[in-house]
């Protein structure tokens, strides 16, 4: 939240913990399928059910994906070990979660936001997911529920937890961070990035401090945000709550708070005397994980193009700053190939970028789907550039191409958008001039405001199909006696 709401008196300090489910075929420590949406409790075995005598064996592909994430975040890959995090809760049948504690596989690093700001990464470690509990009765709320049901399909699914430094200073920036991280996770093939399916889960640490101060205030951890929108709302609410506590002379208690989407507020999850003590100790059933230099180097070499680099490429082609809004929109939506196609066809890449960030982005389905072809798009941009279609016409044609596909010539024809030849436009301009001699007299005498009057008449006379820039030019030339 911006500090303006409190008269510049306070600023917000945010660190994020993002849990990312890895796109492996199997779970982290057993061969059960890692699959979302299956019938309950079909993907379980003695290991993920925590049956006595079972032993975990680490999934190589999970390590590969964790290394890719680390490489993309400029982290240092290191020799690491696993720990047991002990707690009693029905989502983990072993009564402990295998995680990494003091020596994670990826240490340090940074992530670059579209604005160019770098957010520090503290660590990105491997751990296993928990089972899914559903609370029955009491409207699904845990405290009022009569009982709960547990599905262990998710128990043992591989996760990487990415912990940021407290470098984020607003709800908006937190959303940018998660979007950027999501783009990186998808680009590296580590995750499908589906927040709505829980593939990506975000917890955040929020504190406030007097503006300009370097102190790190007492923080609260907020859980249970299921979308970028609720992340933003939760941070805004929590920062305002803490400011109210501190401005009133009180102290913020360090605690975990639960975001309630329907109430639009956070509330304390547990009392202080229940403070958790996980009794971490090294997992005796697993040995050191020490990826070879070769492995790490191969991962780095095959990383592919990440969003920050894609933004730089699009920005260069369109000759705009990499931090500009249209560039980040186009890259986030995976539309940069269309800019490349426009460049390839020698069409105006800047115009292509604007059409993609506005019209195309606005017409995409909820799943990001569209029927637009790259070459067809480039041809449309060229037609607009040459004045064969007005911008209004080009926008209409483009919307149909996004929704239904097809080429610009055919769609424009279907809509009755015949290219208005220069001669036809000249005739229309002549008509409106002759029909309005008084206004023409004033315009001819130098009153430029009247240009708008004539353009309006041309627009009306042609049903919006005229190239109005060309019409303005014709008016100017007629006045100059050319």
């Amino acid at each position: 939240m911006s500090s303006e709401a409190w008269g510049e008196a306070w600023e917000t300090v945010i660190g994020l913990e993002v849990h990312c489910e890895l796109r492996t075929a199997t779970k982290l420590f057993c061969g059960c399928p890692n699959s979302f949406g299956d019938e309950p409790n079909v993907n379980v075995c003695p290991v993920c059910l925590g049956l006595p005598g079972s032993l975990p064996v680490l999934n190589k592909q999970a390590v590969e994906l964790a290394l890719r994430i680390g490489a993309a975040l400029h982290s240092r890959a290191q020799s690491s070990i696993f720990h047991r995090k002990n707690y009693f809760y029905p989502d983990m049948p072993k009564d402990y979660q295998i995680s990494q504690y003091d020596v994670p596989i990826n240490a340090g690093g940074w992530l670059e936001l579209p604005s160019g700001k770098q957010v520090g990464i503290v660590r990105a470690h491997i751990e296993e997911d928990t089972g899914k509990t559903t609370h029955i009765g009491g409207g699904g709320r845990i405290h009022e529920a009569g009982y709960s049901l547990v599905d262990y399909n998710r128990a043992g699914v591989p996760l990487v937890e990415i912990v940021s430094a407290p470098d984020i200073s607003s709800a908006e920036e937190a959303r940018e961070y998660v979007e950027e991280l999501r783009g990186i996770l998808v680009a590296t093939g580590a995750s499908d990035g589906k927040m709505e399916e829980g593939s990506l889960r975000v917890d955040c640490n929020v504190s406030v401090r007097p503006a300009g101060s370097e102190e790190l205030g007492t923080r609260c951890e907020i859980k249970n945000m299921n979308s970028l929108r609720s992340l933003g709302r939760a941070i805004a609410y929590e920062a305002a709550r803490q400011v109210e506590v501190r401005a009133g002379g009180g102290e913020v208690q360090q605690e975990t708070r639960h975001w309630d989407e329907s109430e639009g507020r956070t509330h304390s999850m547990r009392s202080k005397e229940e403070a958790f003590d996980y009794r971490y100790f090294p997992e005796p059933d697993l040995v050191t994980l020490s990826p070879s230099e070769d492995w790490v180097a191969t991962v780095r070499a095959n990383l592919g193009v990440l969003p920050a680099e894609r933004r730089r490429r699009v920005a260069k082609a369109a000759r705009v700053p990499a931090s500009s809004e249209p560039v980040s929109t186009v890259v986030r939506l995976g539309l940069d190939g269309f800019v490349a196609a426009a460049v390839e066809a020698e069409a105006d890449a800047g115009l292509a970028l604007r059409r993609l960030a506005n019209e195309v982005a606005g017409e995409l389905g909820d799943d990001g789907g569209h029927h637009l072809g790259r070459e067809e798009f480039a041809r449309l941009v060229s037609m607009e550039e040459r004045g064969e279609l007005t911008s209004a016409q080009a926008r209409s044609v483009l919307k149909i191409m996004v929704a239904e596909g097809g080429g610009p010539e055919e769609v424009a024809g279907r809509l009755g958008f015949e290219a208005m030849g220069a001669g036809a436009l000249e005739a229309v301009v002549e008509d409106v001039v002759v029909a309005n001699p008084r206004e023409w007299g004033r315009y001819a005498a130098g009153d430029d405001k009247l240009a708008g009057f004539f353009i309006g008449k041309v627009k009306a006379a042609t049903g919006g199909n005229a190239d109005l820039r060309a019409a303005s030019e014709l008016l100017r030339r007629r006045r100059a006696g050319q």
Partner: protein
Amino acid sequence: MAPTISKQDVAHVARLARLALSEEELELYTTQLASVLGHARDIEALDIADVPPTAHPFPLSNVLREDEPRPCLDRDEVLAAAPEVESARFRIPRILSEAP
């Protein structure tokens, strides 16, 4: 030598591990654990600055398996072992707090 562990420490750890200890057991385990910790203290007398921490007694690292699915357990068999089942899921008593 100061005691390495107090009765309160033992009671705390027992509570975390959900162990119900009697007063006599608390006394007994406090004495026994103090003796174990005292033994570990002997190491403090050694200069181990150059010795890396031991992560595991076996001289092994990178024990990995390929990411290939293997058969799971039969669900009916799994659920037959549960005290209560509903909608193919484990039915458990009311939970008193959120997951940690």
